[in-house]
């Protein structure tokens, strides 16, 4: 199975490990990530204004390239995933946005939301399957107590993202179980880390990440996993991250599949 792959800006720079481990693990698990040729930054946040078109075009270009190749479009970063899935939903269901974006793009054939956007975790759950993943684990993370930190962007709004139950998700816990570790369910796993507020108001974000890490360690987590570079950055600013370190989920996957050492960035 081959996927069009949209890495996004941060995975080429500060979050290289999220990307590198994902590629190596995909190979091990029998699917391929084919980076699309001329992707542009998604903008990090979905442009909410119903009259905003230009800010959605980078996503439309990526979605259309996947469509032309007849592939699903795979993402890793929570933000890219959020933006691409929502713009795709607009192109499918909002006539005004679809018309104006296509008028601008002048594609050979108008783009109408045909591409399916999938997150790496969705592929693990729905295509590879967690039972099959468990069988491929050579270095199980036995004894580790791992908390999943979902954050906001992969879950909400649930009706559009259709990633998991937005209030009581389970995909990351199932993932942790498949790696041989013990998932720790804690109340703050889908609370916001502060997101972009940490650029100008670092203290405000820290209040939020302190609460998240306190909640996780209170429920017995040794570490957290996330799919979002900004969540990881914000969580790492909290003193709580010394006791409860935060990893990308792909790093633990690479460890469990025994490919971590060979590809370590």
């Amino acid at each position: 199975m081959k996927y069009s792959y949209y890495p996004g800006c941060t995975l080429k720079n500060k979050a290289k490990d999220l990307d590198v481990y994902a590629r190596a693990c995909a190979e091990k698990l029998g699917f391929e990530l084919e980076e699309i040729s001329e992707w542009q930054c998604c903008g990090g946040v979905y442009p909410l204004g119903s009259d905003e078109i230009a800010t959605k075009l980078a996503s439309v270009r990526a979605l259309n390239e996947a469509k032309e190749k007849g592939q699903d479009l795979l993402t890793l970063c929570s933000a890219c995933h959020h933006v691409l899935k929502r713009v795709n939903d607009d192109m499918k269901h909002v006539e005004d946005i679809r018309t104006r974006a296509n008028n601008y793009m002048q594609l050979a054939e108008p783009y109408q939301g045909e591409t399916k956007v999938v997150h790496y975790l969705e592929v693990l759950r729905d295509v590879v399957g967690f039972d099959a993943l468990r069988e491929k684990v050579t270095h199980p993370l036995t004894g580790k107590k791992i908390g999943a930190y979902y954050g906001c962007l992969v879950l909400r709004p649930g009706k559009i993202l259709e990633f998991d139950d937005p209030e009581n998700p389970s995909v990351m816990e199932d993932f942790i179980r498949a790696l041989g570790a013990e998932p720790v369910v804690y109340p703050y796993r889908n609370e916001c880390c502060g997101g972009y507020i940490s650029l100008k108001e670092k203290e405000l974000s820290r209040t939020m990440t302190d609460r998240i890490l306190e909640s996780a360690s209170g429920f017995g987590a040794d570490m957290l996993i996330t799919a979002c570079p900004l969540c990881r950055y914000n969580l790492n600013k909290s003193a709580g991250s010394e006791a409860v370190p935060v990893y990308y989920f792909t790093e633990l996957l690479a460890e469990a599949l025994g490919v971590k050492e060979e590809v370590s960035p």
Partner: protein
Amino acid sequence: MTKAEKQAELIREISGTDPYKCMKCGKCSASCPSFDEMDIKPHQFVSYVLHDEVEALAESKSLWKCLSCFACVERCPRDVKPGKLIDAARQLVVRQRGQDYLKADEIPQLLDPDLPQQLLVSAYRRYRR
């Protein structure tokens, strides 16, 4: 139509949501992680739009405290989506000349070696035209 009425109409248009559907249950404010920081709380924000009180919204610090976490959007039982109204009001402000909340000159002193690109592009999109 007064200027305030026109601008309130514009907020409703940009947001694409219908504040008249609000039944004032307060779930949005109860869910908001920035509640303590906001001078106009999410449920109040909806009322301000309903009553065309746009000037207060444009000056509200709530515009810059919303994290776009979509907790209010997810939980609103009437699909009013307060977060989209807040964003639309923010758009009205930053679309005016000189009203950016983040200036390019400010950036160098806000950086640190771990700061992800994602943070810069997100802040740029939310705080500027």
